[in-house]
């Protein structure tokens, strides 16, 4: 039996090496990609693995971002607590909203997730005292990372690089956890729900309860991604929870491929890099994105990862 090349380890090493390139821009991009990769992978737990299409996933991203932002900026809570708090609060919100959402199916489910997300957005937009309202909360402090300056190799790096490395570790840990969940019996039960919910019921699966569990997990990890993003973005704003953000992450998930665990992460990478490239030529990025999406839907519904794995399978059969 051939051993798989250790892709994950290689990627992790590559990610950790980015600051060595010395470019603030590359580190910035990489950080962006990592956070969105986590966000998209969390959504895929719902969409790709359980078959639940949520149009309001950005709500949990937003809640996570605001939680960490408020805790760190207004209450001086250290990152070590503020970061997990993002996941906990987002998960709690997902529990509350999800309870109602999983009682519905398909389009009604999607609509309710959208409605809840817009409620979250509206609260963030209007609750000036707590969330800063329309202006949001700029200037979220970095966590205190001076200790990193004392580590070998890392002394000369900037704070943004230090934070990037922290992101790498945290995102890798979260993705690792999600990977484990997806490959577990619980994950298999989710897949049965996606494949045939009626049948799943009749092998003893309490479909609603599992869907709610998936919803909460997905929300919690999205919240963690949001917590990182607020700091990375140096500010937290209401549009983090707006429904168009939900569709952005959905597109990433589709682009990369919902059927493969790392698909959404790939989608995040491709989309962000593409965005960077295109935006330097034209301001009409949505037009380009829309066209890409249409082509994708007609030609590569399995996303890039899906197309890649089909190609690999065909190659293997031919050789």
């Amino acid at each position, binding site marked *: 039996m051939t051993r798989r090349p250790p892709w994950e380890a290689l990627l992790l090493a590559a990610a950790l090496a980015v600051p060595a390139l010395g470019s603030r821009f590359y580190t910035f991009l990489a950080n962006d990609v990592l956070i969105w990769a986590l966000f998209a992978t969390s959504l895929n737990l719902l969409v790709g693995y359980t078959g639940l299409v949520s149009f309001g996933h950005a709500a949990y991203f937003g809640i996570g971002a605001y939680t960490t932002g408020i805790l760190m900026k207004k209450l001086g809570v250290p990152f070590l607590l503020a970061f997990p708090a993002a996941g906990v609060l987002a998960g709690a919100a997902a529990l509350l909203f999800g309870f109602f959402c999983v009682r519905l199916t398909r389009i*009604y489910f999607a609509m309710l997730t959208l409605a809840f997300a817009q409620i979250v957005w*509206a609260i963030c937009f209007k609750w000036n005292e707590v969330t800063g309202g329309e202006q949001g909360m700029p200037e979220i402090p970095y966590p205190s990372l001076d200790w990193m300056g004392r580590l070998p190799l890392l002394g000369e790096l900037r704070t943004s690089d230090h934070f990037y490395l922290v992101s790498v570790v945290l995102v890798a840990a979260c993705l690792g956890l999600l990977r484990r969940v997806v490959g577990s019996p619980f994950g298999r039960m989710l897949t049965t729900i996606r494949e045939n919910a009626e049948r799943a019921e009749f092998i003893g699966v309490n479909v609603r309860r599992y869907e709610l569990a998936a919803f909460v997990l997905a929300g919690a990890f999205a919240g963690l991604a949001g917590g990182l993003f607020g700091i990375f973005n140096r500010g937290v704003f209401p549009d983090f929870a707006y429904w168009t953000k939900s569709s952005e992450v959905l597109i990433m998930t589709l682009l990369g491929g919902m059927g493969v665990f790392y698909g959404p992460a790939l989608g995040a990478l491709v989309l962000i890099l593409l965005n960077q490239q295109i935006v330097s030529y034209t301001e009409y990025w*949505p037009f380009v994105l829309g066209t890409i999406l249409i082509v994708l839907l007609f030609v590569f519904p399995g996303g890039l990862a899906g197309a890649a794995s089909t190609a690999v399978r065909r190659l293997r059969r031919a050789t």
Partner: protein
Amino acid sequence: MPDPSFIFAQSVSGLTAAMFLFLIASGLSLIFGVLRVLNFAHGTFYMLGAYTAFQLAQWIGNGTGRFWLAALGAAAAVAILGGLVERFLFRHLYGAEELYQLLFTYALVLVLSDAAKMIWGTQQKSVSAPPELAGKALSLFGAIIPYYNLFIILLGPTIALTFWLTLQRTRVGRFIRAAALDRETLGALGVNVDALYTWVFVLASFLGGLGGALISPMRATTPGMDTEIIVEAFVVVVIGGLGSFWGTFFGALIYGQVLSFGILFFPRFSIFAVFALMAAVLMVRPWGLLGRPLK
């Protein structure tokens, strides 16, 4: 206690907003009822209707009757666009998963709204109200109702009735209702369901475009109006019941009043109220006022 004529005026303004929304939401509801798809791009068709009306008005001027020509022309143009999109693109996704269909409509939003930006730029456009109705107003119960608003308020039920009669009494209407219930059987009976679907899309787009064209004297035509309106249309359709025609009408009425008085009494929470209402309906009675109860 605010005085009654004020309340009446608010109510009327809510009614106007409702009839606009009905015009747009009815197209959305039609597409959902028959094609079983929630068309995100419907708001963008509405926006294109507004922009096209502006453009046509630029070309043919503002003389008597010109506004109506521009409005109908815009609606027709949008309808044709809708037909082309359905016939050459959307049709091929009918067998695919719902998610793909939804994302396709969203992709349309991206492409079409940016196209509008390319053509018309980002500055606000405005269209003047038709001279026949401009500047005149009705005074009723102490409230001043501009003639144009009155026109819109009367147009809503007129279209609703026409629509309803068409659905109930004509052959085409019966086909549409049948297609909504059972596409395959209808096809097996020899009806060209593909063409029917295209016409439904065309009709819905016409309504959306018309809504945009008619609202242009009252609201600024600007980018972003599509994403704003589509969410409002969703709320209306959910309240009324997805796929129910009269449901959409009453949903729009309710929404209009809630919005109108909500802004008045709870200005801070009006945007919140709208979504809370949508969520409440979905939690308590997902099929809305007049939709078909879920299994």
